[in-house]
């Protein structure tokens, strides 16, 4: 089984203030924790907030450590792991 399908799929939803570099801050943490981004969409609304939906395949512990660090980015307002199922 390849690495992707050896792990659970997680959809990580992040709401940030819409500012320069915020994508760099977020993606830097994913690479630091060796969590490869499978799919990502970003939507900037009228409210000066950016909404990230990121699909990754990883183990729960890595996701927990990653989300703990995502919360520490000053521009990040909310982080949720939306679902967690075997794919």
């Amino acid at each position, binding site marked *: 089984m390849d690495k992707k399908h050896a792990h659970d799929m997680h959809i990580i939803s992040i709401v940030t203030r819409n500012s320069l570099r915020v994508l760099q801050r977020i993606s*830097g943490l994913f690479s630091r924790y060796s969590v490869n981004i499978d799919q990502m969409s970003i939507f900037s609304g009228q409210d000066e907030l950016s909404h990230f939906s990121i699909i990754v395949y990883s183990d729960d512990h890595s996701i927990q450590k990653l989300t703990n660090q995502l919360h520490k980015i000053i521009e990040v307002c909310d982080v949720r792991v939306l679902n967690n199922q075997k794919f």
Partner: protein
Amino acid sequence: MKMTGAQAIIESLIQEGIEVVFGYPGGTILPTYDALFEKKDKIHHVLVRHEQGGVMAAEGYAKSSGKVGVCFATSGPGATNLVTGIADAMLDSVPLVCITGQVASSLIGTDAFQEADIVGITIPITKWNYQVTRAEDIPSVIAKAFHYATEGRPGPVLVDITKDAQMGMLDYNYKKHKPRISHAYDCPDIQFIQIADMLNEAKRPLILAGNGIGMSNAENDLLKLAEKATIPVACTLHGLHNFPSDHELFVGLLGMHGNYAPNIMTNQADVIIAIGMRFDDRVTGNLTKYAKQAKIIHIDIDHAEINKNVKSYIPLHTDAKYALTQLLRYVQPNRHEQWREKFKALHNEEYQKVILPELTMQKDIIRMSQVINMVSEKTEGKAIVVSDVGQNQMAAMRYYKFKQSKSHITSGGLGTMGFALPAAIGAKMANPDREVVCVAGDGGIQMNIQELAVIKQEKLPVKILLLNNNYLGMVRQWQEMFYEERYSFVDLVNPDFVALAAAYGIKSRKVSNPEELESAVTEMLASKEAYFLEVVVEKREKVFPMMPVGAAVDEIRLS
């Protein structure tokens, strides 16, 4: 009030109560240095000799005072020279505000002279960073910078300000960033009652005290809790000065070169309460064999530290002082006599096998431990000891008997050689009335030796203690123990340090005869001006106890 962006930077620093800035001027930060010239009666600028010295001096200032350290650098190489110090501050939770000049906003992205994307470079090693391109944004960004540097778990922030923003005009109005609501770290009483119950029922409790105790000024609260419930206290490297080393409940230092008793007893305790520490790998050794028998209560202000390395039975995301004062209400007096006896027995073993032989004077060699022990006795444990990295650092932490907090300044997390000399400059600037002793090896001292010029220029009576074994001693120790004595590139042909210090205008002396050591240390400490004492120490000394990589805490070796 109308002023330039550069004037606004300086005014904002004054509003934040900043009295000392460490820095190095250059092209893109010239406007700010020009504005500083007008206010040099309010802000004392220390001209370092390398930006790395500047940021590390700011760290020493911050660590020894609890205030925010501020440093200036120009764009490009000036800014990139800050990187090691910023990473160091990130790992050791040091509140810093680094202000860098940047090329004019019209030139960004053109590979202009001295352009470097310092904001991009420092994203992973700052709590927050920001590039300002408009003068009117300067006051609010600096206010945010000070807030983020100190709020919660402290850390470094970097504000990169383009030259045109420094030169532009703005209508200055400074508002401090709104502090986080004061009850942000409040926890329900039931959690403290639950923890207190565990401590009350524990037969073999152990407190692990870290850097967070000092940062929340909770030293007395820790003392009260430990005394009320009579619980032994073990400290991390950065927690060491947060509990009096001569107290009967102090059981020593945790970790790789820590004391025998607290490391071994970590794997015998039934309840461990860890406060303001992060279970660094140098503390835990092999995680799969770390305190598996214990119920661990982990109190830390950084949510991301909870369950990061060690799974806690009760995690508590809060401030150390608040937690300790709450716990004190519910913890019952206790004795734990038998449990404490075990620590004493293990300490005696370490004392007989390691400490006593190391401290026994010999005819022809001087050991690092003897030098530190002598300095400790002669300063009565009241000096600020700024140690570098390696064997000298291990000797300083093992043999200096700290009696008060904010006294042990060292690079713990990043292990940055070259830290001690500039950090000692910062510590002396913040504490002119305290004795500041810089302890370094012959490797590390040469990484920032240029800062001797600052000690001379600022007339700082810093005492520099060079423990010279003409080796990169810690690396040599590892090569001896784990690489079959293949000493690969660790022997140093050194300069004449005494002549070098003298060339910088600093009083200096070299000692290699054990009989002269005491008079030399006395002379150094009695000096009213800076003093550089080189002590030639045993070349092949090894630091013990030692927990080899991969070993468990209770597999720590005495030889």
